């Protein structure tokens, strides 16, 4: 770790500590039953993660998350690549991708529930719809940034269509694809919670609603902190993966 990185890390940790201290002071000065202090929340958090129902709720929620996000990655990547490569596919799918991108998906949740029911399939579908569009548009954008000269060059060396995909198009689109997964992951988590809060009261959403109803502010806050922390960790993991598999992207010029 360089001196610069160390300073940066210390600043971030300091900022976090400052936030927690501010939270503690504010909550104490308000002394409201609806705003738990940082220490109360931390205590509730520890209590929460030591119970089985908590992990069961996590399991329920994440079934929909994993299915929906995996589906969004597979479908979004395939569609994005096809749209970036073939104008006909782009023309056919463009309106729907636009629609999906523009629609506030939360508003469509009741429609989905009516059509698909209250089961896992409906929740996975909501997660999918939250995440798919950004993956499609980023993947397509990745293909569009590929320089025509790279394709000429590969063709000049006699590349087959398959070699072109594997050796030029997919590596070239990879940085943008990773950006799409990053954004899609955030949206998928939002979708996972949104559907549980709005209509299908199970999993983490159910816990949040229950604690809200019981005025158990510390447990409510602890749940929210858990979900936020998970999102931060997962997004950090995608960033880390991105740096690992696209190392050419952040190399600096040595001239």
């Amino acid at each position, binding site marked *: 770790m360089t001196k610069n990185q160390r300073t940066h890390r210390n600043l971030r940790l300091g900022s976090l500590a400052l936030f927690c201290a501010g939270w503690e002071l504010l909550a104490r000065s308000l002394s409201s039953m609806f705003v738990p202090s940082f220490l109360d929340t931390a205590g509730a958090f520890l209590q929460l993660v030591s119970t089985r129902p908590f992990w069961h709720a996590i399991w329920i929620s994440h079934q929909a998350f994993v299915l929906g996000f995996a589906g969004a990655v597979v479908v979004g990547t395939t569609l994005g690549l096809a749209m970036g490569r073939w104008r006909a596919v782009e023309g056919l799918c463009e309106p729907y991708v636009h629609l999906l991108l523009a629609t506030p998906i939360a508003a469509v949740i009741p429609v989905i529930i009516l059509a698909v029911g209250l089961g896992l399939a409906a929740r996975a579908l909501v997660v999918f719809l939250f995440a798919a569009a950004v993956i499609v548009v980023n993947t397509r954008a990745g293909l569009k940034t590929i*320089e025509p000269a790279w394709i*000429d060059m*590969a063709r*000049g060396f*006699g590349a087959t269509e398959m070699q072109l995909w594997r050796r030029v198009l997919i*590596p070239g689109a990879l940085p943008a694809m990773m950006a799409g997964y990053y954004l899609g992951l955030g949206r998928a988590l939002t979708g996972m919670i949104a559907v549980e809060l709005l209509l299908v009261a199970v999993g983490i959403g159910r816990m949040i609603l229950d604690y809200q109803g019981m005025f158990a502010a510390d447990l409510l806050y602890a749940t929210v902190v858990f979900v936020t922390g998970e999102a931060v960790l997962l997004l950090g993991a995608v960033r880390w993966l991105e740096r690992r598999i696209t190392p*050419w992207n952040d190399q600096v010029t040595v001239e």
Partner: protein
Amino acid sequence: MITVRDVRKTFPARNGNAATLALQDVNLAIGTDEFVSIVGPSGCGKTTLLRMIAGLALPDAGVLEIDGLPVTGPGPDRAVVFQQFALLPWATVADNIAFGLELRGMARAERLAAADGLIHAMGLRGFERHYPRQLSGGMQQRVGLARALAVNPAILLMDEPFASVDAQTRRTLQDDLLKLAERSRKTIVFVTHDIDEAVRLADRVMLMSPRPGRIVESLTVPLPRPRPDDLDLAPEAIRLKAYLWQQLRGMQQAPPPASLP
């Protein structure tokens, strides 16, 4: 032997632009192991002609043959060096150089061994594991040239390869190419808009007309090989360059402005 007879190329209308006739009645013959440069005003279709010889575009009409066989696509006898280098940013210098061999199915160890000789010859030693964007423009084009040479083509097609580097580097790259051309037996077609460069390097300079482009003149460069260091001062070179300049200027003046305000 590259033969081009009565070749025509039109680009279809697209995005509101009318169809353009890029090349018409193009005729030329380039001998085996000859070094020919093609000069012409910008937009005259030089690059299109080169792409057709490479097999990356096909003529709409006419005959395009290499050693008597019609060109139907790219082939292992040809390799292209591109103006913007066309290096793959995710591949290291060594992997970029070995890319053509990789596409031909050569095993990694074998192709990297083959690339190693070129890394040395091109003065890229020590940069094998660098990514292209870590290199200067001149070094990037050395990688581009090495990649083309790695597949050992009989014909080297160069599309304004030194147009994107600074003047000093361009001079060095030209000298390297001259040495290469004099040492190895290759047919080289070199597209450029730089008359000095065309005369310095080639055995013969072909002059193209504005669009629709065709070869209007073919001039032998009356200079010995190996080219002397002071060739820019040779009276024959100065005369030839002056003549080419005059012709090019004439072309640019040829179409009178449609209307003046």
